[in-house]
């Protein structure tokens, strides 16, 4: 049963595998309600794998290795996990190409979890989407697609929003624009886990940061107090 005294998300000793290849080795991290946590690391460090495993796109072998308010959810299928309030903005956005922008948002909200996020609320945060609500999602620019992907995840009114590489393939101005909206999202008590290769962006947007290297957490700390040298050393392993 959910226990409000537990942290929102606890990941403890999480392993993940692609066939025989082990991608995560005993990863642990916690996220409190309303907190913004960044996970940084080089390509192939296991960042996306971590988010996919939390969201249920990849199986966690031990149920207790992922807990939401104390409830073991590891290994549940993705469609059960989103019901409990964890939404993922997948890497590469992956909007549904045969749906319009608005239909993409509506399908994100089809479970009908109650909360602040409705079509209007999403359009308030991302006005660019409101103007293009009836065009196919493929007709949006990359930045707008990312906004739609975030909006689609928010429509399920998650308690925890997992964002995989929001900056991927976007112009710097668009990256700043999108990151500038995150405080507004977190202000409502939604916790956010950001996976980023762009370290500066991740540090600026988060409260705490974890660095992954080769499937292990090698550094954890306050985003404001970690020194640049410590982060560089952890990131590259030098």
């Amino acid at each position, binding site marked *: 049963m959910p226990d409000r005294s537990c942290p929102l998300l606890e990941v403890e000793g999480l392993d993940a595998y692609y066939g025989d290849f082990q991608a995560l080795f005993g990863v642990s991290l916690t996220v409190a309600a309303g907190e913004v946590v960044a996970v940084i690391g080089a390509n192939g460090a296991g960042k996306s794998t971590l988010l996919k495993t939390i*969201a*249920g*796109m990849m199986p966690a072998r031990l149920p207790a290795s992922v807990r939401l308010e104390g409830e073991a959810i590891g290994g549940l*299928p*993705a*469609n059960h996990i*989103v*019901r409990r309030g964890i*939404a*993922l903005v*997948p890497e590469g956005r*992956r909007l*549904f*190409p*045969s*749906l319009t922008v608005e*239909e993409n948002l*509506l*399908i*994100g909200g*089809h*479970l009908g979890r109650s909360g602040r996020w409705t079509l209007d609320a999403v359009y308030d945060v991302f006005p660019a989407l409101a103007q293009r609500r009836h065009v196919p999602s493929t007709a949006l620019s990359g930045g707008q697609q990312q906004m739609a992907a975030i909006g*689609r995840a928010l429509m*399920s009114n998650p308690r925890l929003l997992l964002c995989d590489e929001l900056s991927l393939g976007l112009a710097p101005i668009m990256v700043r624009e999108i990151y500038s909206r995150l405080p507004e999202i977190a202000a409502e008590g939604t916790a956010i886990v950001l996976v980023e290769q762009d370290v500066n962006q991740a540090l600026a947007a988060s409260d705490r940061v974890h660095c992954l290297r080769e499937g292990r957490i090698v550094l954890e700390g306050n985003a404001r107090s970690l020194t640049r040298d410590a982060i560089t050393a952890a990131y590259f392993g030098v």
Partner: protein
Amino acid sequence: MDWVNTILQGVLLGGLYALFAAGLSLIFGVMRLVNVAHGDLIVLAAYLALVVTGTLGLDPLAALAVVVPLMALLGYLLQRLLLNRTLGDDLLPPLLVTFGLSVIIQNALLEIFSADSRRLQAGPLEVASLTLPGGLAVGVLPLLQFFLAVLVIAGLQLLFYRTPLGRAFRATSDDPAVARLMGLDNRHVFALAMALSLAVVAVAGVLLAVRSNFDPAIGPARLIFGFEAVIIGGLGSLWGTLVGGVLLGVAQSVGAKLDPGWQILAGHLLFLLVLAIRPEGLFPKVRG
């Protein structure tokens, strides 16, 4: 005037072919499953209608109210208990399993109903006709069937593009993994798609049973007509499927008019012609 009549009859027949095709194309569109047992399921629905009309004393069109929900339920269970297990990256397992299903259905029907030709009686409706200007006479029943076919296809179109269920179908078809992230249970969505497909099959089966004789072995040929209509119309487009069915119907009736032995051949020739000239069909919609 004779030729106008021939073409008109072909158009009306084409509605039935479009119904054969719609259920097939719906399943392929949502889950990339080629249902080889589709034709036999149509025949199964025809026999079900035969039993329902025989035991409940309903007329064939009223029997739809029983046959459609029964076939939909069968579709849901078939997908949930059997076909979902065959879906994956490989297209072959569902082909093999539905092929096996086709053999089982044909032989079960043969065992239960024998190889005798059957027919559903529609009473006075069967011979009723309308006289059009110019001295053309159109049977009320074929006309009714054609409008029913158009209605079903329009309904499917609305369902796909205007309802939450249609949204779920399209999203799951686009990207099943991300659809799950939205909370959609693919197994359930696929089962609903199969239920819908077999509901259309039920309508097609009843209309077929009223229109012509049927026996347990005619399923595979209905499957071929369905395939041909889908390919002529273009994959993924419901209205294209209707046009494909109508063209196939017209080709068959023109062929039959030239020589009664050429009916089926003319349909196949049109199909081959479209494959040769426009292999993507007349109104393609499927990407990659």
